[in-house]
Every structure is written in structure tokens, then in C-alpha cells.
């Protein structure tokens, strides 16, 4: 009898682990009041770079206050398709990239000039829809960060609007300001500061689909149907510089094809939300936890 109970429990646990995940489960809709079309000014000057606070310098630049949203990206694709800036190849959207210099360093892979994947359309996690002429966004995700976008897709978007991806240094200064804080809002992190793994925000359900993105600028001190957030803007007024989605940066380093990502995401523990933490991936990588913003 005891053995049967044990076997049955094990079987239930195994079956539960194989349960399909509803990727289109209902999503709470909130307006954050943060306009994704606004840009913040970052002045020229020195700041503390990295974990051990080396001094670094940047020129002045402007950076988007939020990540690029799915709605912004859909608009871009519609216009860019009309202008021939992007093309459709089966279920993929491609765009031209001029290539990187190949130095043959160990593990380095060639990034040749040519058409590269911007986004896939057939992935179940993709929130961009295409009706043959126009791109749109799955309902509820309009003000969420654009995800499932490769580095080429992020690079292409920024370039289309005469902007570019931030360098890692620019990204870090925009997140940190000029003091030595580890998080954009200050010294410590609480669950109400950002969307990270098991942060118990209204968008996650750890028993089924796990973490999901939150609308850009969600952590702005507002109360959303009883869920009280903390105002977690960076010193320059940027939102989501920690958590929600990893953000592609623009540096292309000598001898490596990897591109670097910053900020941590909905899928990482709080330690990865510290400002200096770096992640990297091949430029063709895309994920429900990766997005971007631009500078100019």
C-alpha cells in the first residue's frame, strides 16, 4: 500500500512536470502612464563603472526612457517592410547587416555581411502578428517590451530611426548615474522594485507559466489594483534598467561574435539585476526575456 502511494505520488509529480504551459494565458492589462516615446538626457562626464567602481567617461547622449515596446516594433516592421528595409523569408523577418571583421580567435564565429534574422514569426512566444501586409501586437502585450528579437533585430530597429544600440558603458551610466549604487533606484532591492524571478508581480504564476514581462515603466510607484510598486527609475529617469528583460547593447568586440546583454530579466534572480552584471549571447539569439532600447 505504502509503495503504491509512493509510486502514485511520483507519477503525479512527473505528469505535473510535463503539463503543457498556456503561453496565451490571460494577462492583466495596466496603463503605467510612462510614454515609451520619451528620451532622457545623459550629460557628458565621468561616472563609476563596474562592480569595483573604476572611473569612466561618456559624451552626452539621449536614451529611451523605456525598452522598445512590442507596439513600437510592430509599427517599425510595417514601415520598414514597405520601404524594403526588412524582408520576409518564410516565417522569419530578415534585415541586412554589414558584417563584422573576423579574426579567427578560438570560438569566434563569422558574422558576414548579408541578411540576418530580426525576429521569427512562428515561435509560440512571439507576440508580433503579421497579416501579410501589416504587423500588429497580440492583445494585452502592446505596452510590454519587445521580446523574441535578435541582436540584429534590435540593431536594425535603432538604425532605422537614426539611433543606435547603447554601448555597455552608456547603458551602465544611464542605469547608475554618477554614484556607486548597485541598482538603478539605490542600494537594496525589494520585490516591488522590479520584475525578476519569483518577484510575485501580477504577471507571474510560478505554478504554471512562470514569469512574464510587465508593461514598460510598471515600477513607477503606482498602485495597480492593489499591487503597490516602488518608484524604481534610474537617476536619469529611466525605467526597467533592472529586471523585466535583458537589454541588447551595441558593442562589437574584437575576436568574439557574442553580443552583451545588461539588466537581468524576469527570469533571473536579483543578483543578476545588479548594474554591472553582464550576460552575452550570439547575435541571432532571441528569447521571451530579451529586449532592447536605443540611444542617439
Amino acid at each position, binding site marked *: 500500500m505504502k509503495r503504491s502511494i509512493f509510486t502514485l505520488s511520483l507519477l503525479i*509529480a512527473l505528469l505535473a512536470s510535463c503539463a503543457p*504551459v498556456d503561453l496565451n494565458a490571460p494577462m492583466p492589462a495596466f496603463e503605467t502612464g510612462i510614454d515609451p516615446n520619451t528620451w532622457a538626457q545623459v550629460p557628458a562626464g565621468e561616472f563609476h563603472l563596474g*562592480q569595483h567602481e573604476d572611473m569612466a567617461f561618456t559624451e552626452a547622449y539621449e536614451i529611451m526612457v523605456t525598452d522598445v515596446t512590442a507596439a513600437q516594433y510592430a509599427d517599425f516592421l510595417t514601415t520598414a517592410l514597405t520601404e524594403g528595409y526588412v524582408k520576409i523569408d518564410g516565417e522569419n523577418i530578415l534585415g541586412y547587416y554589414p558584417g563584422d571583421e573576423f579574426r579567427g580567435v578560438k570560438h569566434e564565429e563569422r558574422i558576414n555581411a548579408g541578411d540576418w534574422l530580426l525576429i521569427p514569426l512562428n515561435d509560440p*512566444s512571439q507576440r508580433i502578428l503579421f497579416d501579410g501586409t501589416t504587423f500588429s501586437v497580440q492583445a494585452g502585450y502592446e505596452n510590454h517590451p519587445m521580446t523574441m528579437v535578435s541582436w540584429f533585430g534590435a540593431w536594425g530597429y535603432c538604425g532605422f530611426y537614426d539611433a543606435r544600440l547603447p554601448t555597455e558603458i552608456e547603458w551602465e551610466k544611464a542605469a547608475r548615474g554618477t554614484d*556607486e549604487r548597485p*541598482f538603478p533606484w539605490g542600494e537594496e532591492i525589494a520585490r516591488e522594485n522590479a520584475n525578476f524571478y519569483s518577484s510575485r508581480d501580477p504577471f507571474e504564476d510560478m505554478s504554471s507559466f*512562470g514569469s512574464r514581462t510587465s508593461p514598460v515603466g510598471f515600477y513607477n510607484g503606482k498602485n495597480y489594483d492593489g499591487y503597490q510598486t516602488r518608484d524604481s527609475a534610474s537617476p536619469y529617469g529611466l525605467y526597467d534598467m533592472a529586471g523585466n528583460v535583458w537589454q541588447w547593447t551595441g558593442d562589437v568586440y574584437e575576436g568574439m561574435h*557574442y553580443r552583451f546583454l545588461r539588466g537581468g530579466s524576469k527570469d533571473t534572480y536579483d543578483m543578476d539585476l545588479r548594474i554591472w552584471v553582464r550576460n552575452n549571447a550570439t547575435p541571432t*539569439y532571441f528569447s*521571451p526575456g530579451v529586449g532592447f532600447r536605443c540611444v542617439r
Partner: protein
Amino acid sequence: MQFIKDRFNYLFNSTKGLILVAIAMVGMVTAVWGMLSGPMAEMGVREIVVKALGMQIVQAEREGRIIILYHSIAMAIIAIETYMVTGLLKMKESFKTAINAMITVGYILTMVFGMGFAYFGRNWAFHGLYITGLSLIFFAGVLLIIALNPWNREYYITDKDYARTKSGFDLERAAFFATAVTTVLSSLFGAVPGSYYGNGFETFLAENIIRIPHKTMMEYSVIGHLHIMLALIGIMITLIIGRWLNFKGILHKIAMPLMILGTIVLNLGVWGVVTPLEPVAHMVIYVGATPSMFAALLLLIWDWNKLIKDGTAHIQKPNLGHKLSALVRDPLKFGPTWQMLFMNFTTSGIGIFMAVKLDEIFRVWPAREERIELTGHWHVLSAIIATIILLYYGDMNGFKGKLRQWYGWSIIILSDIAFAAVTVFEMKRLFISEAEQQPLVNSLMYAIDFGLGMLLVLLAILLGWRLIDLFKPQGRWAEELDHELTEEVDR
């Protein structure tokens, strides 16, 4: 007063007492600091522990804290292995006393003041005492090398069942010696960059820089150091288990030269990482690892063969069922080599698969995914070594009958459930997407937490029993006081 004196004498002046103290120290650190990460952090336990203990967690110091935590646990494990070596191998009593005393003071200083420095404010006096502790362990290692000197004719052997040269040079002792020498030398590959990076906080975790193509010599040194030290702890426990089980015969004669060769070549490869020979160093490492792992396989074959033979001696024509039953009859004797075999599925196998498919699979994933594989497989390796120690310690406690079965099988089954789940977790991206992984992740986490949690409960019960025993006038401790490990080697 005599009460305290007797107990102190047992705990700090007998091999089994010293092992008990070190296991208790590791158990306490693991239980408390295990609550600062993973699911415990998710459930909010971390905040409670941090507040209750008055820890000072500075975000920028996380990497330094973790390095000190790893060292605190590793030094206690090295002390346990050293006690086992001094208890199992012949050496002058004065050497044994000096080595055990030095390493005991060393690891306790390292653990108490290292953790004090790392988690309870930057008290630089604590840091000094932490370094003093590490230095004492280093000098204990030097003394161990002298004590093990296999060229000392006192230690030549005549028994032809064991690996030896014609003149009687003991090749098993030479394998212990080679492992001790290379361990002491390899520790310098951590000590030098440790000093370079200064205060223990301006440092990095190796898994965070793996994809950076150009690394400095100091960075390579740290990477080499952590790999080789764990490998050497693994090699030493294999030799210890072999000695406890009284490994001998033709397989012993083949295994010991391989163990010596493998240890030396493996070390040369790892040391080569910090030299201009770096491009070929990995090939040398593979060449060195192969004989070492083959020698461990020979120990496994010999052990299982012996367990089967001993267990079926009373049956004239044993069938497969009899043989299997005999093999698993004693979990404490079967367990250590089984765990070595299991390690191939959770550590070596994963490592080789990663090396073969690195660019094709693992380097297509983001660095954070690769980090999970790296940290996962060396945590499992460390934990497997710990379970082997606990299995041997169960035998030292003289467990018999059902208690022996429950203790042994609990360790094997609980740990293997957890390690298997960790391995699936590491490799999950091969068969499930990020978006769909959560139910699987939940189940794996339950399995990991259940396995490791229950293992810690088992350890707590064991330590609780040993604590109560200390209050008895003639408890188990009194029996163990003058009992040496050599007396318990299989005959």
C-alpha cells in the same frame, strides 16, 4: 573539569573526533548559508536569516563572499581527508600530531574568521586570521608531504598483493604523496591571484568570464586553481576509499601507477593554462584525466567483484540475482564506488558532452545558461565527494543491521535524486524552451530540495546523536578515543 577534558581530548586529539568536528562544522555552514540562495531566497527565508544573524550583505561583495564561503567549506573537507590519510597510512606519530593540530587550527580559523569577514562586516583583523588559517593548512600540507615520503625505506612493503616496485617501493603511498604534493603546489595558483586581487572582494567568479577570449594570467590562474583543487580532492578521496576497502591484487597494481601518472599529468596540464602553452593545455588535461579516471574504474571493478564474491561465498552456483543482492547488501561499502560511477552521469559525462558540443550547442545559448551547467556540475561533484565521506563516516560509527542499511541507502538515494534533478535542470534547454519550462523546473526543484533537505536532516540526526553521546560517561566517543582507522581497514 575532567568531563570537558576527556571530551576535548576525544574531539581534538583522536582521528574520529576530529572528523566529527569537521563534519559538524561543514553541516552547520551548509545548513545556514544554504538558506541564502535558490528556493530559500524565493520563499523569503534569506531575509529572515540575514536579519536574525545580523549579516551585512553588500551587493558589490557577493563574489568575494562566495569565494570565502567555498574556501571555508573546502578547507574543512581537506582537513577531513587529511585526518583520514594520517589515520590510514603509516607515519611518525609526531608528524601525525603536528599535521592534525595545524590543519585543525587552520580550517577553524579559516571558517570562523573568513565567514566573519565575508558576512558580518569587513573586519580586517578577521581577514588576517582567515589568511593565517589558510597558511596553516598550507604548512600542514607541506608536513604531510614530508610524512608521506614514499622513498623512506621504513615504508617499503613486502606484500606482493599491493602495487610496488621490485625493491618494495610502495606505489600506493607514492600516489598519496603525488596527490599531496600537487595539492600543495596547486594551492599556490589560488594564493597568488588571491593576493593580487587584494582584499578578497575585488575578484570574480570564473563562470562569469568564460566567454571572454583574452584572459589575464591571474584569471587563468584562478580558473586552473578551482578546477584542479576539486579534481585533487576527488583523487584523494578515491585513494582513501581504496585504502579503507583494502584495494589490492592485479587491479591495484595497474591502478596505482595510473593514478600517479594521471595526477601528475593532470596537474601539468592545469598549471600549463597560465603559461604560453595554454592552447595545448586542455589536451594535456584530457590525457591526465583519462588514467586517473581509469584507475578509479579499476577500484570500482575490484570493489564490486569483492562484494559479490564475499556475499555469495556461501552459495555454490550464484545466479545473477544472488550476485546483485550481494553487491548491494552493504550500502556503506557499495555506496562510495557507486557514487563514483554516478558521478560520470552528473559531472564527467556532462563535462565531456559540453566540451564536444560546446560551439554547436552550449555557446549558442546565452552565457547565463552556460553558467548554470558549469556551476551545477561542480556543485554536484563537491556534493558527491561529501556523500562518499559520509558513507565512510557511517562505517566509522560502526553502524550495523537496519541502521546501516537505512543510513547508507538514505544517503545514496536522497543524494542521487537531487544530483539527477540538478543534471536535468542543467541540460533542460536541450529539450524544453524557456517559455515552457516552469512546471518542469518546479518538479526538479522539489526533487533537489527534497533530496538535499532530507540529507541534511539525516546529517542533523547523526550529529544530534553524536552530541548526546558526548554526555554519556562511556559513550561511543570513549570507544573511538583510541581507535585508529587502520584497525577498520577491510581484511
